[in-house]
């Protein structure tokens, strides 16, 4: 008996250790960025244009650029991804075609982000003649997030008990009415989770926007979807590796803003989700 108790303690200890291994880097990153970047934050840094080859002034256009990219790419990928997931989970039969589509989705998730960038360059920038623009970058990012949205949406739909569908159909509801009024409302919190994950990814990716939208230095705000834009992750890369003499605070300040932006959007979406859950 004693031996079993010891084994149990040891087992829990190992599991706890594994959990700490996950948590410690997260805390370390946040702390490092906070400590080193906090001093750089100021009204000027957040809300003015960069000056003096980005060695002075602010990062306002990069913040706005990232914001645009998130909004436009989610506006594209959320509806498309959700509709595809609904089709796959509620309508499609299990046949060779569906299995091929599933395989494609899994593979799409495994493609490296720089390849998405190259793809976006050839399809949107060159072939469709969008030029290096917010729309080209957003679509590239949107396609990159599609697998995440499809997979999480499908899991959310699958988590809705089959019996609800049976009941709804037995009451004379059509398949679409059942999806619309019984399945989707139950799955919405899960779908939102997928959207949240995508927002974080879109805001943080550098490679897909490298050739499709990102401007090295553009001290003005974009006025339309066909404009180039600065974006926080690319800006961070530029000021870290490409330009000598940048104050260290600028780098960590930029990183802090990037993390903060994603955090704010995540919290907002989580609040939305829990509100929705409570309402029912």
């Amino acid at each position: 008996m004693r031996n079993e108790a010891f084994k149990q303690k040891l087992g829990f200890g190992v599991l706890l250790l594994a959990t700490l291994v996950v948590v410690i880097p997260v805390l370390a990153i946040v702390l490092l960025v906070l400590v080193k970047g906090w001093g750089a934050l100021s009204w000027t840094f957040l809300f003015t244009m960069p000056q003096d080859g980005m060695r002075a002034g602010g990062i306002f256009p990069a913040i706005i650029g990232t914001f645009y990219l998130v909004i436009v790419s989610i506006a594209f990928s959320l509806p498309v991804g959700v509709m595809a997931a609904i089709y796959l989970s509620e309508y499609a039969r299990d046949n060779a075609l569906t299995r091929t589509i599933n395989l494609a989705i899994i593979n799409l998730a495994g493609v490296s982000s720089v390849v998405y960038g190259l793809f976006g360059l050839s399809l949107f920038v060159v072939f469709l003649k969008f030029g290096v623009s917010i729309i080209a970058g957003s679509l590239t990012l949107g396609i990159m997030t599609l697998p995440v949205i499809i997979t999480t949406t499908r899991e959310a739909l699958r988590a809705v008990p089959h019996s609800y569908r049976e009941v709804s159909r037995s009451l004379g509801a059509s398949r679409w009415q059942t999806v619309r009024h019984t399945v989707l409302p139950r799955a919405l919190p899960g779908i939102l989770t997928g959207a949240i994950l995508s927002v974080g990814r879109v805001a943080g990716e550098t490679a897909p926007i490298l050739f499709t939208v990102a401007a090295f230095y553009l001290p003005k705000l974009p006025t339309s979807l066909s404009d180039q834009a600065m974006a926080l992750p690319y800006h961070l890369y530029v000021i870290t590796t490409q330009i000598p003499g940048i104050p260290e605070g600028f780098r960590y300040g930029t990183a802090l803003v990037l993390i903060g932006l994603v955090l704010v959007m995540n919290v907002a979406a989580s609040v939305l989700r829990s509100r929705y859950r409570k309402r029912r």
Partner: protein
Amino acid sequence: MTAGRTKISVRGLSVAYGRIQALKGLSVDILENEILTIIGPSNSGKTSFLRCLNRMIDLDLQARVKGSVTLDEIDIRRGVSPEDLRKRVGMIFAMPIPLPLSIRDNVAYGPRMSGLRDKAALGRIVEESLRAAYLWDEVKDRLGHPALKLSGGQQQRLCIARTLALDPEVILFDEPTSGLDPISTAKVEEAALELRKTRTIVLVTNNTKQAARVGTRTAFFLMGDMVELGPTETIFTAPRDQRTEDYVVGRFG
């Protein structure tokens, strides 16, 4: 106890799931305003039979159905859409499954899906249906509460009310009291007996006593065949087939 005209006519009905034959060419007429109770051990095809009558069996992609079913002499596979059919032939499942909505919205679900938007009319339907299911007095002050908070017995009566809201001509009960206590069971049976006055009822049950209590006629199913069909009293007192007798007296091995 006068038998009405034929409401549902089943001819040569077979159901197969892959290689497994669940129903083997069954023919039966279900009469208006009767309670046809179907008894039999598990896997005898009772539920498959029931699900053919409102085409819920179509949701099971594995199932292959042969034979014909007519409702008021109209072929249910040709003369009517599955949605309209299910509004006329309602179904109560073995487990009460309230949708994750309020009590009111559960009952109003069917009528809403058929396009009814008028609030006053929906309110009337909700009240009438809950009354007919003997649930109104218990829930009238909390129609906006989640239906999932109700007790099991109340949930099953809610499901009956939800089906009644569509004013179906036929109601199919699939072992509706298998998960309920005796008092809740009595209430469900009372509701079924009351409904019989205006509707046709088919009730599948594992509980032979229940079949004897509420049935007008009773059918005994065994391994996909209908062994015997007759007035409930006859089935339980003087069955013609030895297997029926063995089953109703509980000597079934």
